């Protein structure tokens, strides 16, 4: 029987180079342009809103500074209250904390999860390009673009929150925030871009592991939240050894990690004294004006305890370390993102069907 044999083509076979990387550029763009457009619209709308709100905030700030120049002027307290009240919902930054994870989850998780869920990976991963190169050629450019967009947006964020960190604030008793405030630290500097990249990388890996779009998005949100809490609660305080001082006048811009009291060189108590101690040394009730949280300002507590030999110690991170911390956090987030993307690519390479 005559079979139709395929003629060998030696010329074709010897030079089996891979398909060039840049071909994936169009592929990534075409498949994810809706997603990227969504991110652009989202950030764009936010940017407009933030700019409008920022102008309000900046003008309130300028007005407050001007009104408080003679610090005891009559208009000053009103202006301060007006400033404090402007855009109060943005003041602690928690709302905007959602932005990196939303971008990362919705842009990152579907990259692989949708292919696996709809079965199109059986097309994409049997083409000549090869599946792990395909994955890499998608994740890296997308990650870079998203990080860049987030970075651009964070310039606006830096501008918005600048009034809270203005050097002249303390003089006019405007709210002095610590740059390490948990809701604000990673909105400024390079933190926003780094966290967006990390969210994207988590999303990509979740997509590959879970193989369904919606569960992967949910898992990404959960993992990111856990990571953010871990970072803010345990990692960040330890980036550099905290400074310790017994000076009672710790600047308001510092990030106070813990406070404790000693007497005669020995540890007495941390935080709030026991009721019996209070009764002994502060018999006239909670002394002095209350500070944030309703607790009496420590300075006032010191007022009754210090004469009896108690020393207050404060462990804190000074505001001047802000940028060092940004680089440290950005650095490990970048490394984590690279690791997660590498893990995703490795998984794709190892197992598919």
């Amino acid at each position: 029987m005559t079979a139709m044999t395929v003629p060998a083509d030696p010329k074709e076979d010897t030079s089996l180079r891979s398909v060039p990387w840049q071909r994936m550029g169009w592929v990534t763009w075409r498949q994810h342009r809706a997603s990227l457009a969504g991110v652009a619209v989202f950030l764009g709308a936010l940017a407009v809103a933030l700019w409008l709100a920022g102008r309000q905030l900046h003008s309130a700030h300028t007005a407050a500074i001007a009104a408080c120049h003679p610090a005891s002027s009559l208009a000053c307290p009103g202006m301060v209250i007006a400033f404090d009240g402007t855009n109060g919902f943005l003041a602690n930054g928690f709302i905007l904390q959602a932005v990196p994870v939303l971008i990362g989850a919705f842009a990152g998780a579907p990259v692989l999860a949708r292919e696996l869920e709809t079965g199109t990976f059986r097309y994409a991963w049997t083409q000549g390009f090869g599946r792990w190169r395909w994955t890499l050629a998608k994740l890296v450019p997308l990650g870079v673009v998203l990080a860049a967009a987030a970075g651009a947006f964070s310039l606006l964020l830096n501008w918005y929150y600048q009034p809270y960190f203005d050097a002249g604030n303390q003089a006019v008793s405007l709210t002095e925030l610590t740059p390490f405030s948990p809701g604000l630290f990673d909105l400024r500097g390079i933190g926003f871009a780094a966290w967006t990249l990390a969210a994207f990388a988590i999303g990509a890996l979740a997509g590959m592991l879970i193989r369904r779009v919606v569960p992967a998005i949910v898992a990404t949100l959960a993992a990111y939240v856990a990571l953010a809490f871990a970072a803010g609660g345990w990692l960040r305080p330890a980036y550099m050894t905290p400074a310790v001082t017994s000076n009672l006048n710790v600047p308001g811009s510092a990030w106070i990690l813990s406070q404790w009291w000693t007497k005669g060189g020995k540890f007495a108590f941390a935080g709030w004294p026991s009721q019996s101690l209070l009764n002994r040394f502060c018999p006239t009730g909670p002394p002095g004006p209350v500070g944030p949280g309703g607790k009496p300002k420590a300075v006032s507590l010191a007022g009754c305890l210090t004469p009896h030999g108690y020393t207050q110690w404060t462990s804190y991170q000074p505001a001047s370390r802000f940028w060092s911390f940004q680089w440290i956090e950005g650095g490990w987030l970048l490394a984590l993102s690279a690791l997660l993307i590498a893990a995703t690519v490795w998984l794709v390479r190892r197992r598919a069907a």
Partner: protein
Amino acid sequence: MSMNVIEADGLGKRYGGTWALRDCSLAVPAGHVAALVGPNGAGKTTLLNLAAGLAAPSAGGVTVLDGRPAGSVAALDGIAFVAQDTPLYKNLPARDMLHLTRNLNRRFDQQYAEIRLGELGIPLKRKAGKLSGGQQAQLALTLALARRPRLLVPDEPVAMLDPVARHDFMASVLTAMAADGVSVVLSSHVLAELERVADYLILLSRGRVQLAGEVDDLLASHRMLTGPAAEADQYAERLSVVHARRGQAQAHLLVRTTSDDPAPPGWEAHPVGLEELALAYLREPGAAALPGPARGRNNQQTEVTK
């Protein structure tokens, strides 16, 4: 000079605790339409996924197109796999699917693809998800063939198609073979069309290869013997019986034979058709006829065929 488009050696794949495919050894020659046949769950898709590089073996190995490791760049270059349900990006128009495939492969015949889609009446601007089932299958096939592969691997391509679409699809596949020398390994559980289409058969049952060989050889090496039921048992001892059917007085024995011996006295010998042969083997999961050394793992006799 002919090469093997798929060579498997003790190939196995396990999912969790179950072996979807086991002890699979094959050598499928080029220039044929090889039909991979078996009931649902027999391991057909698993085998094709392994050959296409979509899955990695748990045991043994598989190479394609004369020794290229499955899943390697060289293998992906020469194999066009069309998965079940012909996956396409539903929101992309046909034109963008062409563009996509062109970018993802070294070779792509854009002109051929456009002409073919034009002949089939598939509009380039329409989203793939809005095409009919038959059109989607034809689009997926066009993308595959435009890559100028050496081997086309459609996985149950016609399962979801109506008869006309099914005929057109198979006609396209076979025309590609005729015109460009593409080898085909397809999976099917529709036995009736096999005789027309396949010239190499691989029978899979419960994850194991029961039968593999050129159709002509297989048909020539099997015979249906019809005779008295009372004598059936004594011949079952001497002959290599694949499958027996008995009535009260009459019995049919499907035997495997390497020679042209005449039927035993009182018995008639008939040639067997492909569908009948395949069905008989599928009904006897223990029977196997593999080229190469016999592996004694069946209840029935395993005989070495050519």
